[in-house]
């Protein structure tokens, strides 16, 4: 059985636990063991954009050091925000010698240094494509949902900046479309797939996030999607939990369930359920039943 080192991040242990659980189920079926790092720390969620702030790079770098200590070369990440932060921290250490030296000096009590080229931070989608192979995933599909249409939402952190993008194109990515088409599910035209959901402004600019959700979910609905598929617990929260409030004020707004990539994939390859449905604001069960994905 293949084994891959894995860093969950904070939210996958709480509100995003359906993401982690379903990924473990999916990987089990694919014959891969996700081995969680013994010790990891919160990545800090947002990569520091100011040039003199080295302090905030320490948390992701320490997690990368823990990954290095496993002796493996890859670190699997599911959450888009962890992915972006870890990937950019790794790239900073690799390319900026001055900062690399400063960071390693500061961490002088660590047993080893981190030089940036020991670990590759790999997102779930790239792991499935490059290490498992989409064809191999597709071969495992046992449920053929009758005419399930999905809107594949990438958001920001999987794509921007371009150096960390999970797809060659950060403007019109198609990696998820490729995966799900092979698995027998139809992606709909979805021009809002790379539009920001409002991100952390959900804490104090609720109106902005509601307006984003109205447009993004509205576009998915207009194009006939039964479901929106995401890779970020924050996108998931913003798009899912806003829908009732949007529906209360916008006439004709159609609510659509939001699920993680791995939740839908796990069901397709034969899992009985997609986790704890109470964590969803818009219940996905009616759609999943109608399409024959759950009993």
């Amino acid at each position, binding site marked *: 059985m293949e084994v891959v080192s894995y860093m969950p991040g904070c939210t996958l242990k709480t509100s995003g636990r359906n993401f982690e659980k379903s990924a473990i189920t999916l990987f089990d079926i694919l014959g891969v063991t996700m081995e969680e790092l013994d010790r990891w720390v*919160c990545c800090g969620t947002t990569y520091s954009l100011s040039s003199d702030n080295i302090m905030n790079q320490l948390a992701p770098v320490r997690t990368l050091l823990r990954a290095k200590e496993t002796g493996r070369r890859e670190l699997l990440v599911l959450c888009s925000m962890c992915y972006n932060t870890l990937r950019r921290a790794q790239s900073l250490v690799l390319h900026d010698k001055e900062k690399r030296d400063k960071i390693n000096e500061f961490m002088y009590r660590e047993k080893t240094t981190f030089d940036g080229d020991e670990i590759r931070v790999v997102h779930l989608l790239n792991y499935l494509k490059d290490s498992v192979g989409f064809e191999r995933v597709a071969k495992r599909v046992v449920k053929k949902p009758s005419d399930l249409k999905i809107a594949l939402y990438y958001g920001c952190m999987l794509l921007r900046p371009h150096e960390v993008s999970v797809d060659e194109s950060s403007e019109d990515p198609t990696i998820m479309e490729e995966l799900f088409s092979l698995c027998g599910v139809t992606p709909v035209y979805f021009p809002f797939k790379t539009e920001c959901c409002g991100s952390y402004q959900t804490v104090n600019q609720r109106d902005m996030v509601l307006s984003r959700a109205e447009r993004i979910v509205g576009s998915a609905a207009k194009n006939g999607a039964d479901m929106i598929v995401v890779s970020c617990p924050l996108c998931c929260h913003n798009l899912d939990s806003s829908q009732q409030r949007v529906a209360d004020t916008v006439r004709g707004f159609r609510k659509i369930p939001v699920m993680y990539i791995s939740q839908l994939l796990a069901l397709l390859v034969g899992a009985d359920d997609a986790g704890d449905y109470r964590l969803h604001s818009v219940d996905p069960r009616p759609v999943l039943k109608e399409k024959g994905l759950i009993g």
Partner: protein
Amino acid sequence: MNVTLSSSELKKEGIEKTAQLSGANFFSCYQCGKCTAGCPASEFMDIPPHEVIRLLQIGQIEEILEKNSIWICASCITCAVRCPKGVDLAKIMEALRQIVLRKNVNYVHPSSVSKEELRTLPQIALIANFRKLTG
């Protein structure tokens, strides 16, 4: 947009600090407006992103800081990847926030987040928000 050209020391310092913290050359911006066109937050901002850059170019940093724009930005990086002149506006927004936050001024007060919100918001929302909007 109110334009008054001035070169007081204070302004110069702010401009230099913004350039240093962001590492971005905002003087190469030619005001095409592409950043604003793709910005998911611009309609909620007092002044749109390309005007923030214009004000920086002419040294009007106080005028930027009086407006809400830098606090509404969601750091989505869309502007930075689309700018035809390679101006990293996301980093400029961050630098401007830092100039205020490093004076020990908070834009968001964690104590004002209700218990209900603390229960329902994902950690990444709270941590990212406090990282971006508190000093």
